[in-house]
């Protein structure tokens, strides 16, 4: 008997799953299980079974019974991908007092039955995969998950309705929140709207109470006119560096009286809040109900910053609150979890040349129209043409501008059909004008939405089914002079029509924010090809991301209406509150460790580590991995020229053994061939 054979063998249980017909339809599961039981005895297999659904309670109990009765020390399950049920089987082992990391799940479904049709070959492959798992699991070690504390504070990036909802929920539960917002005030796009569908609630009236709550909440620290620069750390322990842009206003002294912007002589086109349709001053608050109420000075347009003169605001401020010497402040906060709720940007309708936006005066976008209709907007809520005085007698509303279009954005922007119907109502109510809606489909799926559509039909809006081909001012006959002509095929009639109107409203689509890709990188999450942030699972986990501790809520995940954004903000908050309540979180113990004796101090691993998890000890001239920061990616393991780093759960010995197991059958056949 060799020395190897004298060593105490592990007692391994092998379980091969049928997964209904998913595996059994291609792989002869019973044959694999019998083969493992007969041929892998010398590796330590003492029991080998097959079962219809290993992940079911009965399947798990089967394993647990064997662990107790057969005194198993290792378990190999051959079933689906670890991505799905690794946790299930690990927990089953834990339930029978076997360390969960002594269980190995090998995939004979995604890697075998689902990708092959040759049943004989697939069965042989399954045997090899099981043999690989058995060889490997012998070298597994019992591991304990690392427990890290969860910092109770939360960072929320984005002060729109989703961010506000999340902030209030967490703060109301008694935990601190940092709410970072790029603009001088929170509120987001919802603050720009006039009315919201389908109830036609005044948008500001339902939003501002929440904004005020946020402003007054003892648990919320609002960091407006600020941006996140850097994020370090990991779930439960993030260190976030934030740049607070100088407002040039001393908030301790400012009363929000508004004299400064009254006296400011520099008028600027307000491209943000007024959507380019109105003006503001160089010192301004974005809108009257801004939270916080303190104005900011726009140093790009302010005469003092550009030429060194003026300073009218400082002269007239009754409390001496203007301070031109203020500097940006960099601060770092510690938080346990992060929610990204940065919202959307509007599609630039100038990209569609046939619609004439940017060229024809009376073609407006949806956001411009919201400002037109809003009583706090540039026209005091009067719906008038660009001249500021004429009320339109006919208005055309164009659906799907820049959406559902391979020339621009392929997706549907979800809210524009309802928004267009809302506009039809507002125009009708305020002006009595004839309203046309030009659509491809009418998408009104949620509660009260289709009833709203019925109401708009009742109000007399005219619907033409056809995607607008062209908007032009080139008249062909006297009836078209001085009007905007919408040229479209009325597909239900089957003829091209030219419909003269006074005003056109383009329902431009939603796009991810400019700079989304950079923001995603800062937080370590991914964007889709369109630029929306990717959720952990599109059906079952819409607010978590693949990065532990970072959540997404609202339109940053994809276009959606206000109720859905609010729901997602609340969902993200609930997930975080759950984590905070637990006070600590268990991290996967798959980590890298450096063998001090073998480390030569070359420090190659230090720079390779994407998580900055490796420290170098100057005194001993060796590197050390911080297990809390380490994510177990394996880069350093591969990069170490001395082979001094190994990954727990993925050691060289484990991987090489698995390869030996996989090749067992092939090598045996070769031996037979040689002998024969």
């Amino acid at each position, binding site marked *: 008997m060799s020395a190897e054979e004298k060593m105490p063998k592990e007692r391994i249980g092998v379980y091969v799953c049928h997964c209904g017909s998913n595996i059994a339809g291609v792989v002869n599961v019973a044959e694999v299980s019998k083969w493992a039981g007969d041929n892998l005895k010398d590796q330590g297999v003492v029991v080998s079974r097959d079962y219809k659904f290993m992940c079911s309670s009965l399947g798990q109990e089967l394993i647990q019974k064997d662990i107790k009765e057969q005194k198993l020390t290792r378990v190999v399950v051959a079933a689906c991908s670890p991505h799905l049920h690794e946790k299930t089987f690990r927990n089953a082992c834990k339930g029978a007092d076997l360390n969960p990391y002594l269980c190995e799940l090998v995939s004979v479904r995604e890697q075998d039955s689902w990708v092959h049709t040759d049943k004989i070959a697939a069965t042989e492959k399954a045997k090899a995969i099981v043999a690989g798992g058995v060889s490997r699991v012998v070298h597994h070690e019992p591991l304990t998950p690392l427990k890290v504390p969860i910092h109770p504070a939360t960072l929320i990036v984005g002060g729109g309705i989703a961010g506000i909802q999340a902030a209030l929920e967490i703060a109301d539960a008694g935990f601190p929140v940092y709410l970072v917002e790029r603009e001088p005030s929170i509120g987001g796009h919802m603050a720009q709207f006039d009315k919201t569908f389908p109830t036609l609630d005044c948008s500001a009236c339902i939003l501002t109470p929440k904004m005020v709550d946020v402003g007054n909440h003892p648990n919320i620290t609002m960091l407006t006119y600020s941006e996140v620069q850097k994020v370090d750390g990991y779930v439960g322990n993030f260190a976030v560096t934030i740049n607070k842009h100088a407002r040039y206003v001393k908030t301790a002294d400012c009363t929000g009286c508004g004299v400064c912007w009254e006296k400011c002589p520099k008028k600027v086109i307000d491209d943000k809040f007024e959507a380019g349709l109105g003006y503001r001053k160089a010192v301004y608050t974005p809108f009257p109900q801004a939270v916080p109420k303190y104005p900011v000075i726009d140093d790009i347009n302010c005469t003092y910053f550009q030429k060194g003169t003026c300073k009218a605001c400082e002269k007239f401020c009754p409390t001496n609150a203007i301070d031109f010497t203020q500097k940006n402040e960099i601060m770092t906060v510690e938080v346990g979890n992060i929610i990204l709720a940065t919202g959307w940007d509007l599609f630039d309708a100038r990209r569609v040349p046939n619609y004439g936006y940017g060229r024809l005066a009376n073609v407006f976008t949806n956001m411009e129209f919201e400002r037109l209709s809003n009583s706090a907007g540039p026209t005091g809520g009067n719906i008038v043409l660009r001249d500021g005085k004429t009320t339109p007698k006919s208005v055309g509303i164009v659906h799907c501008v820049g959406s559902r279009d391979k020339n621009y954005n392929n997706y549907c922007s979800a809210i524009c059909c309802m928004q267009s119907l809302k506009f039809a109502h507002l125009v009708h109510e305020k002006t009595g004008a004839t309203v046309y809606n030009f659509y491809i489909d009418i998408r009104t799926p949620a509660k009260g939405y289709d009833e709203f559509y019925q109401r708009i039909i009742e109000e007399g809006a005219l619907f033409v089914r*056809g*995607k*607008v081909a062209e908007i032009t001012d080139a008249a062909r006959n006297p009836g078209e002079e001085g009007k905007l002509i919408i040229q*479209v*095929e009325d597909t239900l009639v089957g*003829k091209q029509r030219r419909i003269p109107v006074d005003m056109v409203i383009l329902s431009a689509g939603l796009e991810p924010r400019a700079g989304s890709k950079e923001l995603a990188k800062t937080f370590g999450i991914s964007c889709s090809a369109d630029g929306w942030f990717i959720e952990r699972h599109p059906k079952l986990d819409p607010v978590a991301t693949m990065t532990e501790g970072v959540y997404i809520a609202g339109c940053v995940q994809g276009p959606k209406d206000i109720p859905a954004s609010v729901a997602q903000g609340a969902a993200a908050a609930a997930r975080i509150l759950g984590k905070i309540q637990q006070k600590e979180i268990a991290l996967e113990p798959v980590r890298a460790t450096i063998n001090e004796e073998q480390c030569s101090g070359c420090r190659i691993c230090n720079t390779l580590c994407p998580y900055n998890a490796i420290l170098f000890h100057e005194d001993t001239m060796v590197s050390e991995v911080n297990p809390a920061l380490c994510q177990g990616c394996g880069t350093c393991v591969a990069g170490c020229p001395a082979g001094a780093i190994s990954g727990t759960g993925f050691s060289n010995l484990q991987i090489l053994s698995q390869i030996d197991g996989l090749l067992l059958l092939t090598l045996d056949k070769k031996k037979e061939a040689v002998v024969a």
Partner: protein
Amino acid sequence: MSEEVIVNSPPSAGPVKHEDLALLNQVAKLAPGDSHLEMCIQCGTCGGSCPSASAMDHTPRAIFAMLRAGMRDEVLKSNTPWMCVSCYYCTVRCPQDIHITDIMYTLKNMSLKSKMVQDSTASDFSRTFIRYVENYGRSFEIGLAGIQNVTHLRLATRLPNMAPMALGMLTKKGMSPFPPKRIKGMDGLKKILKRAKEMEAA
């Protein structure tokens, strides 16, 4: 004895032939590039953009709906492709990236091959144009205009200021009333076109 009453359904709703169901795919395949015709969502951008839509008996979008419905005869009899001016508005604006103008050329070819063209004014013009090219290697505008207007006299005589325009072509623009000089490689070109036609017919 009860009489069985047989009710005739209207002729256009007769049984659909197998090849008609595949009509859409057949047309898409005949176009030179990847035309994406099957992606049509019937939005109407093409019909809305077309400068000659008012002269067509069916808009381009309607033609695609008819292709999908397997209405082979109606499509091939339609004057729609012949009214196409190749301005490409439809192609650049189509949200599904369909190469509509190329489909129109394909439909012209198909309607000629199937001999279903109703009004031959356009195809006569094209045939006359090409006859010169196939003989000289160059086009001959005066000859073309002459033949077209003579064979379609009713059309020509309805137009005002025709004579001064025709005269002006010769005097002002200095266009030659004589056929062009034949290109040197005419034999080679004839062989090329003959081979191409054989492949087309296959």
